[in-house]
């Protein structure tokens, strides 16, 4: 915010009609959280995209650094035993 003249940026998360989790859809500017939700409703749900909205100040999100990608994620690549693919699943068990 430069001298209080710019509205802060908000990240918008929408839960779709069929989705269980909120998904990041984009960002927008708004003076406060209530207006951010209203703006998100008008900008991101015009075509019936959602049933629930979350917003969070972009400044409050903390992200992993791209530089650390190898250290963080490469070690998982050769550990197939972490995937639950070695167990026979009974047919009766749904939604796994």
């Amino acid at each position, binding site marked *: 915010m430069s001298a209080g003249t710019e*509205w802060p940026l908000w990240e918008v998360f929408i839960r779709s009609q069929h989705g269980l989790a909120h998904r990041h859809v984009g960002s*927008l*500017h*708004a*003076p*406060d959280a*209530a*207006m951010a939700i*209203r*703006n998100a*409703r*008008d*900008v991101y749900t*015009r075509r019936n995209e959602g049933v629930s909205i979350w917003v969070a100040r972009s400044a409050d999100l903390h992200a992993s650094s791209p530089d650390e990608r190898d250290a963080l994620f490469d070690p998982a690549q050769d550990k197939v035993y972490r995937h639950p693919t070695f167990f026979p699943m009974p047919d009766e068990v749904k939604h796994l």
Partner: protein
Amino acid sequence: MTGTGLPPASADALLFDYLLRLADSDIVLAQRLGEWVGKGPVLEEDIAQTNVGLDLLGQGRLWLAYAGEVEARYATRGRDENELAYFRDGSEYRNLLLVEQPNGSYADTLVRQFLYDAWHLRMLDALARSRDERIAAIAAKASKEVRYHVERSSGWVVRLGDGTDESHVRMQRALDALWMYTGELFAADASDDALVAAGIAADVTALREPWRQAVGDVLAEATLAMPSDGWMQGVHGRGGRQGVHSEHLGQLLAVMQSLPRAMPDARW
């Protein structure tokens, strides 16, 4: 239509005129909001404001379509929604004076919207209980949209009224300037009375106190002063709903109607 005690043709003519009154305020305000497209103070607001305008246009179309069907019952033919919107002159328009007022600054636009939304919602809730099923159905559908309009414009009135010194002054000035058009929202004439008695129209005189209460609550939160009722425009049977308009409507219609009038058969 029954219940007015009038011959069917006269009663239908009355209903037709009433439907135009409902339609025209929506259409004229939608056109006003359309003037902001691409010029909103921020992108988000540009989109939000346009959404509201499109909601109103959609509602106006529903009222006009019904009006045309009613007209066909007593006239040689009923006009369709395009003909009613684009080929009536200003003196045939039946909208409230409030909605034809120019956009002014964004404060003027928001205050106009807030005053109208707060009335519009109560109007639709009353119309949803109309004995005319078509009116009740359109009103019930529209009130869902308008409930959001009220929330949005109220939110802005609070934020800008109780915002900076500059925004407060602008909002109060807009409120003071537009207040004289709010009397017409609650003024009923003889044709309103006949349709209210028949259980078809909404009794606007009963909406005044709830409206003042709701508007007063928002203004108090916004630290804005509710103006006192001075000279009110259009309340003595010679207002927008009787076809007597300010000069602003003619200019608005000239823009809105120029294309269909230049090319009557134009199609998308």
